[in-house]
């Protein structure tokens, strides 16, 4: 009887092993339109067939993503649909910014999943989520844990909590980054007390009047203009002369900083490094 029992067991095991294989296989051809999703996939050892890139992009990308086809992103659809279709992907990691394009992608038979965190905690949860979608759950668990540890380490021993204003320069009208924006959350996690004057907005950005800024008198101002890194001195000088800001503690104590990279605007996997930089350079805590 024993060989028969063994055979029976083997058959059952074989069937059980075959069942997951019979289910929908993990998507093979994946496009990662956001830097966070691209780098996370790289961290999971999954190579996408295409990654998104905005014009003038200076995003940090994992080295094993070199050579992957870059899809230029522009409003309103995101990537060029023909180029995307040519890659014949089964799955695209996208962002709500490209919602219009998501509709077309779905019509083309591509599954669309948003993977663009808007807060620091989101980087951990979305790492796990991506892992689940591409069926690398155990790798993702490890990656997520590592990320969690890195973030915790970056936040150790915060000594000061300066009152900070983070401003996005859109033309001549600046927008305040609120706690529910990526940059706002990063700066808060770095220990700052964000000045918002009680304004809320679902988008995470709001125009507040210069009078409010004057009254609030921040200790630190972080400005993110639309400019290149070589323009920083010029822009800093211009912003320093803004009448609403020139008498603030921040300007008088030389704590007006200009950031020209995307690190406070766009979520990425190097969030722990960004927190560290904010602490070291801007908040000095």
């Amino acid at each position: 009887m024993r060989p028969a029992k063994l055979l029976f067991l083997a058959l059952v095991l074989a069937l059980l092993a075959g069942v997951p294989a019979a289910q929908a296989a993990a998507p093979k051809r994946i496009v990662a339109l956001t830097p966070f999703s691209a780098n996370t996939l790289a961290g999971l050892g999954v190579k996408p067939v295409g990654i998104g890139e905005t014009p003038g992009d200076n995003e940090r990308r994992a080295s094993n993503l070199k050579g992957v086809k870059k899809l230029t992103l522009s409003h309103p659809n995101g990537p060029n649909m023909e180029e995307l279709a040519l890659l014949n992907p089964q799955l695209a990691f996208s962002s709500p910014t490209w919602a219009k394009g998501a509709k077309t992608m779905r019509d083309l038979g591509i599954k669309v999943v948003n993977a663009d965190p808007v807060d620091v905690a989101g980087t951990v949860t979305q790492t796990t989520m991506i892992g689940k979608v591409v069926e690398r759950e155990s790798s993702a668990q490890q990656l997520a844990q590592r990320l969690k540890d890195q973030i915790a380490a970056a936040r150790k021993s915060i000594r000061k909590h300066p009152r900070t204003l983070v401003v996005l320069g859109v033309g001549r009208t600046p927008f305040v980054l609120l706690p529910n924006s990526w940059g706002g959350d990063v700066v808060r996690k770095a220990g700052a007390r964000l000045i918002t004057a009680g304004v809320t907005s679902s988008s995470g950005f709001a125009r507040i009047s210069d009078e409010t800024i004057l009254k609030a008198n921040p200790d630190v101002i972080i400005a993110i203009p639309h400019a290149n890194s070589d323009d920083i001195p010029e822009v800093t000088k211009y912003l320093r002369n803004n009448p609403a800001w020139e008498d603030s503690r921040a300007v008088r104590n030389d704590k007006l900083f200009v950031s020209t990279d995307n690190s406070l605007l766009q979520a990425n996997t190097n969030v722990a490094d960004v927190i560290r930089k904010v602490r070291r350079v801007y908040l000095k805590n």
Partner: protein
Amino acid sequence: MRRTAVVVVLVVAVVAGLTASLALGAVDIPLQTVIDALTGNADPGPLRKIVLDLRLPRTVEAVAVGAALGVAGALLQGALANPLASPDVIGVTGGAGFGAVLILIVFPGSIALLPVGALFFGLLAAGIVFAIAWAGPNAGGPGRLILAGIAIAALFGAGMTSILVAYPDRVQSALFFIAGGLTSDGWSDLKVVWPYFAVGFAIAIALARPLDRLALGDDVAASLGARPRMIRLLSGVGAALLAAAAASLAGLLGFLGLVVPHAVRLASGTSSHTYVLPVSALGGSALLLAGDTLARTVRAPIEMPVGPFMVVIGVPLFLFLLRRAV
């Protein structure tokens, strides 16, 4: 005859435009593959998908939108006896812009409703304009219609600008729509708006001869048993349907509706609506096909808005015709 020559030239232009629109794009596809895809002989795969699901619906949209705007402009210029009349004048463009921006910026989660929003508000604006124009003294007169149109267009335009100012960080997504242009969205939008195109074109066909009766003035039209006010109202309705449907697909495309009928009249030398209406459809399609193909290929893979390209093609042509006419 000049009239035949103009038709021949435009038909050739449309055919060339169709070919270019299907054969050219961000991805290089050999012409034979394009033909195979269209005739059902191509192997399934991304290239076939690009031709059938991205380029073909877009080409059809370009033809429909170009024809619709050309005909809408011709209808209004004939009905209002005013060479400056265009779909913008009856408030449709302003309303459609407001509706689209409302969805794009305030309710971005409902993005699938974009064509519906543009269509609804475009027709609403036109409806308000007609209601104002047909009430009170001098009801149905062209002057009243134009003034009401300008006022309502301004109202909805202000609404649109207010939304943009209230959500300035989302302005980018609306910019493309405002500049005017087609996007490779597949067939889903066309499925929603095709009935409005159909009804609008049907009204235009029915009004071709009646509009000629308005040519010598309302009194002569009445003498002939025509009803000038009814003709004007129906022209407005037809133009509104066509322009609202066009705006829901292609954003706020100005210029075409105003200039194409004039160009047709200048080139052919006739103002008869039985000629000008269909030929404006041809001219509009040709211009938009050319403009859209350029907009898609000039800086590929980035897609530019169509408006500037149409203007670059259309304005020199128009100025040339104008000089010869004078």
